[in-house]
């Protein structure tokens, strides 16, 4: 009846595991009680969970990412604590528990922090940047969100029922095969990946179509804001690379569940193919995480330097180059697998070439700042911190791109330091910059800058303290994922790294305080114009938070920095000649239902509860059938209602709220008018 699920799956075997389970269950109960106490269930369901509005879906993605960031960071803290103490001793974590922790840390941070964070920011902003009223497929967007949430829920429940994978976040066979990992851990990992992978693939397709088809009049490809460009590029990467992940995870599932031999030791299996297929997805994935952050940095650096982005065209081409090249370097993740010198050399050279367009971007941002009037808003501070720190990671990356050097440093903490050096400043700092930059757009009030700056300093100091020692330890020969060690000269470095993790903990606490403090003084930091930073791109033309339809009348664009031009020409905040009826998608319960069914399906597969697998499969098909035969999925927002909302908004804006654009009016050669003294 319950497959291999018995009462022994509950974590009564160790105090640490029980603690983790208690925190997870306790957190769930606390959230449940809070919502009940606020009597918010109905609002939550009708306004949020069933919503197909891209802005609300985006906010839910970011909330999911922040919750999972805390969960993934607790894993990091536990690893740092273990290694700080475990010189010639067992520390406080048994090996099998330590292995689960580093596996879940990587899985969570990549799939359930970085992916939802960037998808959330893209959801909130990109339709507004291209002057669209919604994404191309609003319902599909809701399905994507709930598939991702279902994957996250599978990882979370593995803490309470059963165990998580011990095979690392990459789960290489044969260790992750059924012969060496017979438990449920690897299955949890696989189903979390497959479920959330479906969500990511659908998001990618959705944003390709949105950006290609839904741009407002005049918005040619070469007038799209940089963040939209990076989104288009990563959506293409997602659409082409995630199928590889789905296939490889599906093959390993067949191996484990139905006794196939894709990756087994014997019977014609080839485990090297697993590494190959995993990294065909895995390397584009690195750029899927980093390119949107590059887009955010581009927007932030232009806005807070008060200048047009330097070298827009070169940034576009650099982004496109990186996107294509990201498909040509995957072997550098397994240089040591035994390929011949020619193969390694080609992939090593391709890897070094990728550093060139990335360097172009760094220079473009520096030149944007050059002679700009820089304002040290938290998002700008994160951007500057990124530029300095990311270059270090880039240099160590080029070092690792040399196959001979890689042979010495592979699988060491040098590698760990390198990829954290790319992903924390490169991706996460970008998302935090985006959080500070676009928060007023999503919620209508600004975030507290003081706590924003504090969180930045805690993060960057914590980052350097936590990962610079790991570079040194890598040179000293420490391999990654060590539960305990015997070399006393390593311990001081590991203690410094643990202190760094404590600084990062303060950084996360500062973000929590920042959110709390800002919410407390909501009224005083209200964003009335919808343009708190004197922004340049179209998302600042809408109200904050935007009306459900974003734009009452679709804007027309003649150049990049469309909203900046509108403000200079006095076209911003002008009521249009007339309003029109707007067709909007209706909310639907099918998205959350499909998510819940995907979660149950994954859970049933993990525990071999076959009747539940069949039931969930059939119910999913029923849901799809109901949706497909629903001809009444849209409603019309009448022009009178649109006019009321818009008039109310414009009535609140007084000229005193608007930014003084006199300093920005082009003069001299930039104005296009003939210069004095020339004929």
């Amino acid at each position, binding site marked *: 009846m319950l497959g291999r699920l018995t009462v022994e799956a509950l974590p009564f075997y160790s105090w640490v595991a029980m603690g983790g389970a208690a925190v997870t269950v306790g957190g769930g109960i606390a959230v449940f009680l809070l919502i009940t106490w606020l009597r918010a269930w109905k609002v939550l369901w009708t306004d949020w969970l069933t919503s197909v509005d891209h802005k609300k879906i985006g906010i839910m993605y970011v909330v999911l990412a922040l919750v999972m960031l805390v969960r993934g960071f607790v894993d990091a803290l536990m690893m740092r604590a273990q290694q700080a103490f475990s010189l010639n001793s067992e520390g406080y974590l048994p090996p099998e528990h330590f292995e689960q922790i580093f596996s879940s840390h990587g899985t969570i941070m990549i799939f359930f922090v970085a992916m939802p964070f960037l998808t959330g920011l893209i959801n909130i902003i990109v339709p507004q940047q291209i002057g669209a009223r919604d994404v191309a497929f609003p319902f599909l967007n809701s399905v994507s969100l709930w598939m991702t949430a279902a994957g996250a829920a599978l990882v979370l429940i593995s803490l309470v029922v059963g165990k998580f994978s011990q095979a690392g976040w990459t789960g290489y066979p044969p260790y992750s095969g059924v012969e060496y990992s017979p438990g449920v851990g690897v299955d949890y990992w696989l189903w979390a990946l497959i479920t959330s992978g479906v969500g990511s693939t659908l998001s990618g397709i959705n944003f390709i179509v949105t950006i290609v088809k839904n741009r407002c009049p005049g918005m040619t490809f070469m007038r799209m804001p940089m963040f939209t460009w990076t989104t288009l590029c990563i959506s293409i990467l997602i659409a082409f690379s995630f199928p590889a992940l789905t296939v490889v995870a599906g093959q390993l599932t067949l191996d484990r569940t139905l006794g196939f031999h894709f990756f087994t030791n014997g019977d014609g299996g080839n485990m090297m193919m697993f590494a190959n297929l995993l990294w065909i997805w895995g390397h584009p994935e690195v750029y899927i995480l980093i390119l949107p952050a590059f887009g955010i940095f581009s927007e932030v650096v232009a806005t807070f330097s008060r200048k047009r982005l330097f070298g827009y065209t070169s940034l576009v081409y650099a982004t496109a180059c990186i996107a294509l090249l990201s498909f040509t370097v995957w*072997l550098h993740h397994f240089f040591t697998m035994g390929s011949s010198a020619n193969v390694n050399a080609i992939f090593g050279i391709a890897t070094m070439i990728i550093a060139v367009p990335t360097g172009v971007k760094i220079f473009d941002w520096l030149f944007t700042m050059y002679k700009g009037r820089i304002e040290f808003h938290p998002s700008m501070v994160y951007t500057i911190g990124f530029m300095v720190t990311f270059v270090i990671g880039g240099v160590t990356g080029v070092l690792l791109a040399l196959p001979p050097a890689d042979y010495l440093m592979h699988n060491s903490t040098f590698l760990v330091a390198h990829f954290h050096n790319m992903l924390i400043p490169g991706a996460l700092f970008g998302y935090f910059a985006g959080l500070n930059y676009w928060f007023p757009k999503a919620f209508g009030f600004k975030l507290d800058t003081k706590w924003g700056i504090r969180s930045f300093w805690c993060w960057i100091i914590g980052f350097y303290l936590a990962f610079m020692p790991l570079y040194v330890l890598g040179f000293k020969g420490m391999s990654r994922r060590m539960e305990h060690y015997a070399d006393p000269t390593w311990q001081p470095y590991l203690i410094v790294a643990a202190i760094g993790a404590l600084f990062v903990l303060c950084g996360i606490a500062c973000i929590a305080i920042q959110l709390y403090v800002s919410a407390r003084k909501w009224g005083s930091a209200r964003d009335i114009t919808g343009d708190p930073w004197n922004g340049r791109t179209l998302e600042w033309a809408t109200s904050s938070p935007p009306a459900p339809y974003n734009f009452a009348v679709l804007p027309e664009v003649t150049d990049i920095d469309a909203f900046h031009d509108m403000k200079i020409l006095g076209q911003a905040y002008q009521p249009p000649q007339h309003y029109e009826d707007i067709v909007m998608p209706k909310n639907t319960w099918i998205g959350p239902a499909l998510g819940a069914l995907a979660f149950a399906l994954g859970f049933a597969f993990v525990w071999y509860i076959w009747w539940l697998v069949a039931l969930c499969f059939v119910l999913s098909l029923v849901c799809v059938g109901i949706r497909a035969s629903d001809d009444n999925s849209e409603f019309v927002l009448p022009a009178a209602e649109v006019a009321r909302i818009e008039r109310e908004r414009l009535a609140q804006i007084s000229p005193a709220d608007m930014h003084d654009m006199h300093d920005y009016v082009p003069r001299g050669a930039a104005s296009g008018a003939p210069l004095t003294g020339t004929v």
Partner: protein
Amino acid sequence: MNHSAERSLSTYLTGFVLAVLLTAIPFALVWGGLLAGSAVYAVIAVAAVLQVIVHLVFFLHIDLKSTPAENLFFLAFAAVLIFIMVGGSLWIMMDLHHRMQ
């Protein structure tokens, strides 16, 4: 209207016949043991690629004239990526195979 409907029916039928043929050939070769060694792999690979082209032309109605340039560009891009992924994987795995002997 009637004319174009007839034409599209004949297009679909041509496509269907070609698709069946391209499926039957590899099956026949393997089942009947008509060819051996790497020649079988070559024929199957060629038949598979032709199969993809048949689907694109006869079922998805993609041709160089009437399909928008944007779509052709994305299709070409997809072809490049598939070439990189499949070709790269074959190269890497063949190389490993060679070194294991």
